[in-house]
């Protein structure tokens, strides 16, 4: 690993150089306070002063709906049209860590060619951030990156410190080395350390993830799950915005006038009603409470037991997305015995009151 220095005014010239051979994806503003990753040609669209995109960058590697292949009775033609050279610039540490988890999922027992081919052609250029009240990544220890990036930009006053995390990252720098500077002064190092210390202290949200597997086990039959199930709108948003969710559905889209079919792959969510429906119409998790329990058990227990860390990277997307406040923070805190203020909590109290009446 090597660290180099880049003057702020050299950032766009650098992006100009590297985007010649690949599509550059970067955060752009979609709403007043909400951003999305978009393939950009006009760099003035890039807005690095963003908190979190609505949908995580996994969307770029595996879009919500893709054609997998077209088949007839005797032929089969794969569709890898989503595979192209891409550079994702401006990814925050939580999302870089989430992609590490995605890499593991899609290579776990069998290689998923649709993901891995797209991933092999994609370079990850991380970018430093500052936490807001919903960022939980310090608790999940994903507020820093140790792997999964090709370059990582830490923004200081007048320049960036750029971590080179892979040989492909190094190749990017070498395309125009004159833009970079190798001599990092003691003052630069001190500025970086001060920034890092201040950032560590700026986190407001916190959960103790170490206890989560035990708490989920101990509270597996807790009334909490029924309370959550009563309020849950089953909209699937927590799942669709989660950077480590990876379930999908596959269906046939027969072509009219041809004896052929397109096989479509689309994101699925275990929090949705028809996710657990099997042939014959049986559904194992008709109850919303059971579905939420599955999601949280996966994120906060099963994955920790297997890999020693949660399948949550603390990005805060479920916190800003769930209309009824069911999210890692309120559920985690409730499991730890803390009081929380959330719609699902107030809703249950209200319903109980009305039953008593």
């Amino acid at each position: 690993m090597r660290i180099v220095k880049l003057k702020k005014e050299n950032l766009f010239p650098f992006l100009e150089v590297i985007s010649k051979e690949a599509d550059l994806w970067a955060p752009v503003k979609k709403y007043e306070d909400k951003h999305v990753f978009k393939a950009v040609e006009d760099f003035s669209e890039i807005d690095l002063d963003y908190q979190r995109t609505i949908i995580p960058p996994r969307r770029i590697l595996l879009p919500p709906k893709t054609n997998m292949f077209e088949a007839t009775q005797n032929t089969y033609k794969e569709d890898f049209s989503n595979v192209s050279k891409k550079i994702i610039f401006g990814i925050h540490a939580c999302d870089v860590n989430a992609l590490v988890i995605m890499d593991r999922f899609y290579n776990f027992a069998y290689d998923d060619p649709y993901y891995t081919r797209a991933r092999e052609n994609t370079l990850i250029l991380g970018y430093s951030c500052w936490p807001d009240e919903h960022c939980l990544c310090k608790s999940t220890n994903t507020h820093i990156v140790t792997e999964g990036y090709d370059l990582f930009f830490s923004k200081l006053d007048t320049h960036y410190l750029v971590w080179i995390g892979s040989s492909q990252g190094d190749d990017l720098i070498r395309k125009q080395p004159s833009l970079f500077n190798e001599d990092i002064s003691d003052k630069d190092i001190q500025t970086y350390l001060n920034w890092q210390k201040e950032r560590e202290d700026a986190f407001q949200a916190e959960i103790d993830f170490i206890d989560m597997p035990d708490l989920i086990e101990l509270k597996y039959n807790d009334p909490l799950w029924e309370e959550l199930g009563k309020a849950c709108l089953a909209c699937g948003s927590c799942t669709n915005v989660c950077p480590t969710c990876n379930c999908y559905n596959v269906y046939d889209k027969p072509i009219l006038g041809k004896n052929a079919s397109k096989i479509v792959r689309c994101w699925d969510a275990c929090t949705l009603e028809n996710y657990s429906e099997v042939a014959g119409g049986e559904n194992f998790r008709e109850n919303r409470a059971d579905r939420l329990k599955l999601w949280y058990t996966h994120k906060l227990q099963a994955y920790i037991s297997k890999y020693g860390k949660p399948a949550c990277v603390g990005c805060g997307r479920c916190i800003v997305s769930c209309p009824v406040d069911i999210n890692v923070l309120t559920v985690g805190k409730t499991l730890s015995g803390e009081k929380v203020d959330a719609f699902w909590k107030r809703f249950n109290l209200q319903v109980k009151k009305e039953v008593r009446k």
Partner: protein
Amino acid sequence: MENSKLKIGIYELTGCAGDALLILDCEKELIDIFNAADIQSFVMAKSDNIEGDLDIALVEGSVTTEKEIEELKDIRQRSKIVVAIGLCATVGGIQARFLDPKEWNERFKKVYGNIEMTHTKPVQSKPIDAYIDVDFYLPGCPIGKEQFLIFFTRILKGNPPEKSQNPVCVTCKYNENDCLLKKGILCLGPLTEDGCGAICINHNLPCAGCWGPLKTGNRTSEYYLLKEKGFDVEHIKKKMANYSGTKIASFLKELEKEKK
């Protein structure tokens, strides 16, 4: 070859005829549609209609007269598969917005006075499954082109259609929209069948529910959520009832009870 094609009938009861129109509007695919199926009856598209036995009948519109009840029963009898297409056929449409029979009679008199109907007797508007067994439902107001073509092609090839049970929110998130409900806007996305492509929310307008109510939608929770956000309860009920036809009657009754 001609004989192996499935015999199809497309029928319109009371509605805006938007669903039949949408089928005709599949201009690029129209030749393929007529090539792949033997369209026996389709009043909007042709005049030489044959009313005989059918493999599949697509029925749009709600049932609002006694004559239509007869017509519908006759279609059922002649068809192996009956599909309800569009909001009016699937839930009854806006005209079936839950009203008790007494209230309906009063409204009817208010609009038509004591006029005597000679042609056929009007009845309270209902979805087609109030009178006959329905094999499949294709919601929408009107139905969506892509959804219809996938559905139609599958059924022509003898495969049951995919069941859509997702709320609008799923596609809305695919499209990376900001959640309007979270922002305090009365959006019915979580309670509404997916299929429209989240078109309103894509344009920053809330979902009005026109694809019809999602069977498993958590109406109670969203009702309380909207109430907490300061919406008037009558307004919430009106919005929820608008495109739900007769299908959320029991939920609305529960709310009435609660008021008392």
